[in-house]
């Protein structure tokens, strides 16, 4: 059922975000072309307009991604559509997992589109061949590094997994805050904002506590242990530790969300 839920979730969010990301990429092409073809009298005006358009597309894509993901959670689970969603033979845990995974994927998609838009600007200004003229050197460098240390190839998927987990943790935190705010009879948005701030305070306090623990040598011990290892092992272990830390935080927020939606749900 999780895959079926996700199929409809991606369709529902995609119909709003994909045109937005498409517009972002078109704005990047226009900016690149305007800079690349500068030289005539109207080019300054064209560059200014396309820069404003690109900046507008960037800002609106970031803001609207956040708004759409938040609104989707609230409207779909806690609004009138909740009567349909919670009548489906699907557990509350799967409903939350669906929203968290979808939120994480769309957040990462936004980051990828941002990188892609930068690349498009570079390619349209400089031309494909000049941007990628050093590609042969890069490829041969990568081949050399892989031949010396094959596990270097794992760093990219590891980084993507950590990035996805961090996005999932962030989404779970936002959704948990919304679920806390929904417990309020009135002013639910205010409740959600205060809950989000509260979570931040708790995270900071716990961070400070961990720093205090490091005074007793725990962190130093871990760092010494890492120093004694091979640099690639250090890299993989650091990625693993980052993933573990982020996953624990995501699991805590997922649990808060689950308790509130499964045990304390009260749809209007």
């Amino acid at each position, binding site marked *: *059922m999780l895959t*079926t839920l996700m*199929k409809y979730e991606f369709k529902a969010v995609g119909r709003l975000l994909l045109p937005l990301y498409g517009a972002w990429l078109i704005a990047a092409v226009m900016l690149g072309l305007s800079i690349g073809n500068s030289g005539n009298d109207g080019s300054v005006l064209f560059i200014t307009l396309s820069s404003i358009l690109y900046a507008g597309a960037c800002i609106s894509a970031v803001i609207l991604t956040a708004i759409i993901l938040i609104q989707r959670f609230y409207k*779909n689970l806690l609004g009138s559509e909740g*009567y349909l969603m919670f*009548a489906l033979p*699907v*557990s509350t845990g799967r409903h939350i997992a669906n929203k968290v995974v979808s939120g994480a994927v769309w957040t990462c998609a936004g980051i990828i589109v941002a990188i892609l838009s930068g690349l498009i600007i570079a390619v349209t200004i400089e031309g494909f061949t000049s941007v990628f003229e050093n590609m042969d050197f890069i490829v041969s460098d990568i081949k050399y590094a892989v031949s010396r240390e094959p596990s270097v190839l794992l760093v990219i998927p590891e980084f993507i997994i950590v990035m996805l987990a961090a996005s999932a943790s962030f989404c779970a935190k936002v959704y948990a805050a919304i679920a806390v705010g929904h417990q309020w009879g009135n002013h639910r948005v205010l409740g959600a904002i205060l809950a989000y701030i509260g979570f931040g305070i708790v995270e900071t306090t716990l961070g400070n506590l961990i720093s205090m623990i490091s005074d007793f040598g725990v962190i130093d011990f871990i760092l010494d242990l890492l120093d004694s290892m091979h640099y690639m092992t250090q890299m993989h272990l650091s990625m693993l530790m980052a993933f573990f830390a982020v996953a624990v935080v995501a699991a805590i927020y997922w649990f808060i969300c689950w308790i509130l939606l499964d045990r304390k*749900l*009260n749809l209007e």
Partner: protein
Amino acid sequence: MYVLECNNLSKSYGSKRALERIDLQLGSGRILGLLGPNGSGKTTLIKLAEGLLQPTDGQILIGGKVPGVETKAQIAYLPDREFLPDYMTVEQLLRYYADFFQDFDMERAEMMLKNLNINKAQRMKKLSKGTKEKVQLILTMSRDAKIYILDEPIAGVDPAARDYILKTIISNYSPDSLVIICTHLIADIESVLDEVVFLKEGRVVLHRNADELREETGKNIDGLFREVFRC
């Protein structure tokens, strides 16, 4: 085993008691009217059956099981509001129900849509309020569920469509299922009711066979309701 059973069931919202020690045993093969004025606890009872709320005390069982994923697969629930995503077309909603509910009968749904002249290609947001309610009812009644819970199923539709909807309810439920209709429009549904439950201030004040009740009191259910709940 009862299809739906409440044992000493209570529900409070903070200090407000919405349901007070409800004991109710409902079997299959009947259409039950869950009747009561506003705030009597009807919707709370329905939400508890559907697993949308947790009881404060006591328990509610669906086919002997606590509400959960398994019982949701057996209940066809029609809430008293617009609950379908308005960006979807009627056809997409049919596929949605077929994807999630194994007991969904696509042919039956398409036939009912055709009988009511509803265009499958239309988006929900383009439909009138009455047509939206018809689509919601069609989706609910196209399932082969053990329990149908219909909260105000005819409130928003015209009188001509009401007859069709009542006919649909009668013809689509099987002898091993239970239909619970919760409404204020008692006169319109009275003819189809086998059993009635009157709820008042969170308590069951009457649970009887509809025909027996009419014979004993010499009144119809609508008249009796007005008498019991006179302001």
